[in-house]
């Protein structure tokens, strides 16, 4: 590790070249985001990684019932947070957070994106084609957060603004946080371009060539049964 190369504890880490974004975003703000952009978010975000939470949110959205937090024009992310209630305050403290695999929620994301009027969603690993289609229609983008980026992402937490559905375990609750300079990468934009779909297609296209190279290297390789070195 190079001394001075890493930020001081407690100081938000904005990656070099990141575009600062103040939340909530307008529809044109979101349409201006391009796949591959690094951004740093400041403002309010709502998070949950609960499957029961998603099911319940989708039921609310489908029935037109309001959620305990208004997400119209807002940001909803698959971030998992530890909420500490130890000091008995009205609101818990969020000790840390980190993304979870978003494809687990594919089933509900189109309903949530269309029904709640979200401008930003995110997590890690992306969403499927049906969700990307919903993002394009609704003018919403998907952000990728660093898996294993807990120390960096947690620095951005300023405060817990609200925490609902407290009958669930910490990371399943519907929690709204105020963040400053939360780093992320635009991975599916509001025009429907998905880095994940592009990479998946590119890998599928490349596969025959990769397998052919494997075959060539296999034929040139040492034979099995040769003595250990």
């Amino acid at each position: 590790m190079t001394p001075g190369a890493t930020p001081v504890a407690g100081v938000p880490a904005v990656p070099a070249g990141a575009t600062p974004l103040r939340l909530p975003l307008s529809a044109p703000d979101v349409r201006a985001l391009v796949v591959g952009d690094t951004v740093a978010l400041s403002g309010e975000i709502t998070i949950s990684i609960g499957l029961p939470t998603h099911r319940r949110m989708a039921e609310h959205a489908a029935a037109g019932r309001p959620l305990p937090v208004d997400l119209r024009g807002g940001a909803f992310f698959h971030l998992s947070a530890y909420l500490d209630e130890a000091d008995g305050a009205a609101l818990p403290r969020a000790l840390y957070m980190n993304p979870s695999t978003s494809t687990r929620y594919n089933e509900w994301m189109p309903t949530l994106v269309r029904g709640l009027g979200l401008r930003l969603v995110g997590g890690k690993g992306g969403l499927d084609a049906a969700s990307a289609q919903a993002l394009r229609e609704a003018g919403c983008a998907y952000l990728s957060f660093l898996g294993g980026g807990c120390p960096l992402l947690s620095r951005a937490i300023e405060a817990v603004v609200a925490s609902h559905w407290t009958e669930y375990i910490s990371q399943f609750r519907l929690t709204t946080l105020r963040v400053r300079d939360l780093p992320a990468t635009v991975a599916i934009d509001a025009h429907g371009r998905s880095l994940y779909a592009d990479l998946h297609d590119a890998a599928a296209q490349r596969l025959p060539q990769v397998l052919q190279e494997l075959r060539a290297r296999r034929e040139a390789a040492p034979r099995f049964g040769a003595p250990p070195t």
Partner: protein
Amino acid sequence: MITAELIQHVAGSLYERALKGIPADTHRALQAALGHESSGTGRRTLMMMLDSADAAEREGALVCTDVGIPVYSVKVGTRARLEGPLRAAIAQGYEALVRRIDPPILKMVTHPLTHERGHTGRDIPIVSFDMVDGDDGLEIVCAPKAMGSGRWEELKTFVYPTLEQIESYVLEVVARAGSQPCPPIVVGVGIGGSFDHAARLAKQQVLRPLGQAHPEPAIAAMEQRLLGAVNALGFGPMGLGGQAGAMGVHVDYAGSHGFMPVAVALNCWINRRTGARIDADGHVEWTG
């Protein structure tokens, strides 16, 4: 004499260390990947990974919120003298750590039928044992397994597969996982043996130190060409595109039958694994 208290302490410490840093070889592998990565997004992502790992170590913070399920592999010397229980001591060490760890950890252990979550459960921590003939000590490895990579591991039983079929299957599994297992990953491949043994081999290969080639040249060559192929798929760091899709592909095999299981195990970029050796006199050497 190796006491139960010492085993408890070591089991707890191994889990905590696995959550609050990454192995030194993994740090080196990420730095090496940064030197070769041509994707700008890939380079930025690798730099954030290194920053995150360094910050966790410096601040005593968790690298990832998904602390996984606790998994221990233990090698017991046939001449080791233990005072008190072994399996129970490991479980007590884990449970004591869960109570005292700062920051506290989320509930990840899930009942497979009710989906109820906690820190404990049937067979948790998962502990497997091996015997080492003649040794008078104890080796414990802790490799907590989380969802990011755990979800994509696979096993398939073939009948007299060709080498080409085996290698294509490994690529197929990695391609299916694609952007999702938090690459650059470590791939462990177990070929042959029985159903359970192939899975065990694959897991052991994930835990092999990076940069250590298999002693048989033909297997070492297979590892190298599979690593090249995995990286050529282009998923890159965090699956956002680039060359650094894997830090290593490690392969091993066992005598089998006409049916031949092939298991593919994966670790995400934080590559959680810590180890310790406890000598007969109670001296502890931390090995990772």
